[in-house]
């Protein structure tokens, strides 16, 4: 089988989510890549180094700079004439573009796969990960999004792909990029961090969230996450949300501070290697999944912990 992997990037560098998607694709067959963007020759060069990849198709055009689905999907559809499967990382870009490709190909997409069981059979989570379904497709072409935490990362170097330009499909005139607010952060990215410190509603305010969570995260070299309640209350930005409807993470260590452990939150972090929970309620559901629990008031425990690390 000939597969095409969507390379996740910011027009400058390849994002880690690409590497786990390559691993999933390699289980199906030959791996080719698609780099669509503007001024992406460095990205294409880097992508060609990923272990095990064949051709790297590059579509360099202003119409692709912001990965607008209306422009990018037709490009992918065009490349599916010569590929049997396309795999996207389940990032917000992948989730936005993949179904548009699937519908155009008249294919039922397989969302957020956890494993490849065979050429047409996959597992995927449903009901916020409370159930795992094994599904088999009868479609001739496959359109898949891949859960990054479920697959090992392919090596970023050691490969020798060949870069090949593809003709751009142009701007469809349906949509335009206006602007973005991307918070620059020195911290690791949530979805690839080894350690995450997440704060919940109990933090009480934006000021306290930053005053308590940030120094602890700094000590641990951790990314910062949050529960939906903390995000809704404005203590933390939207893209910090971990959970069923936010980001799915699986770090080595996940520290949940003042988070009760609702199923929607657990859906996003229960595959973490070690879960540490700090909560004043010893019956909080988070303790049912925590490897290490500490019962008490976070306003005294967290500063003490930061101090002693």
């Amino acid at each position, binding site marked *: 089988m000939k597969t095409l992997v969507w390379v996740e990037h910011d027009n400058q560098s390849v994002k880690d989510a690409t590497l786990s998607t390559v691993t999933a694709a390699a289980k199906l067959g030959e791996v080719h890549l698609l780099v669509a963007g503007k001024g992406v020759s460095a990205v294409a060069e880097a992508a060609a180094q990923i272990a095990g990849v064949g051709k790297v198709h590059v579509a360099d055009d202003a119409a692709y700079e*912001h990965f607008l*689905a*209306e422009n990018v999907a037709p490009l992918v559809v065009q490349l599916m004439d010569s590929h049997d499967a396309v795999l996207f990382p389940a*990032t*917000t*870009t992948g*989730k*936005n573009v*993949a*179904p*548009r490709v*699937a*519908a155009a190909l008249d*294919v*039922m997409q397989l*969302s957020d796969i956890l494993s490849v069981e065979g050429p047409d059979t996959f597992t995927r989570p*449903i*009901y*916020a990960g*409370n*159930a*795992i*379904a094994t*599904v*088999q*497709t*009868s*479609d001739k072409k496959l359109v898949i999004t891949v859960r990054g935490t479920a697959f090992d990362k392919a090596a970023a170097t050691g490969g020798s792909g060949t870069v090949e330009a593809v003709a751009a499909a142009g701007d469809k005139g*349906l*949509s*335009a990029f*206006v*602007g*973005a*607010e*991307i918070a620059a952060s020195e911290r690791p990215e949530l*979805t690839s961090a080894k*350690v995450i410190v997440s704060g919940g509603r109990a933090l009480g305010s934006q000021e306290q969230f930053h005053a308590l969570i940030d120094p602890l995260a700094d000590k*641990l070299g951790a990314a910062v996450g949050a529960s939906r309640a903390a995000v*809704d209350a404005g203590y933390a930005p*939207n*893209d910090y*949300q971990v959970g*069923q*409807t936010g*980001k799915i993470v699986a770090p*080595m*260590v996940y520290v949940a501070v003042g988070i009760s452990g609702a199923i*929607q939150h657990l859906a996003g972090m229960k595959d973490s290697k*070690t879960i*540490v929970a700090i909560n004043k309620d010893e019956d909080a559901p988070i303790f*049912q*999944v925590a*490897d*290490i*629990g*500490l019962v008490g008031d976070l306003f005294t*425990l967290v500063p003490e*912990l930061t101090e002693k*690390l």
Partner: protein
Amino acid sequence: MKVLVPVKRVLDYNVKPRVKADGTGVDLANVKMSMNPFDEIAIEEAVRLKEKGAATEIVVVTIGVAKAETDVLLTARAMGADRGILIQTDDEIEPLAVAKLLAKVAEEEQPGLIILGKQAIDDDSNQTGQMLAALLGWAQGTFASKVEIAGDRVHVTREIDGGLETVDLKLPAIVTTDLRLNEPRYATLPNIMKAKTKPVAKKTVADYGVDVTPRLKTLKVVEPAKRQAGIKVGSVDELVEKLKGMGVA
């Protein structure tokens, strides 16, 4: 401008899903079913557009069992939708087929905007809106946290991995809702009573001539591996020891 809002009846989000012992799926017998929470946000947004004068009529449509009429279409009308369409079926309909049915409804109704949830909390597919946009050849503003109509365009602020992004889309367009778009109002009892007089058109899948044969076959559904609860430590010092033991401190 007419706004179309597709809504789905799902297992209530407060109910813990239980996998059936025979591995065929999740047990939905005698459990509370409600409107998908993202669809409540979609209706709220449509109602606000109408209150601002940007929308003239709100039509809700659901594809599902007969009970969807009382479980979701009534709530939707009580929140402010003007009329409903029930496309009745007892089969499980996949997102691609849902999108094909909705495309037919859109052809009939000619809405200027279709607002869907970004994902249904049962199957978590996150596909239907994008598929519908592809079938109609419309622009899509997914994972919306802000929607502003400006003449024949709509500005949509989207929740993306690194933060927020704003796109400018040509109408008619598709919007899918994220959690921070708005806080949906409750369907009050008096409004539920009044909603009963708002019309619902009853249709079947056959009325639309769409092939809804599933492409995916669910071979089995199992519970994920359970995590065991670990230990509780008695002090910060003990926790520091443990963290050091793991090499993270």
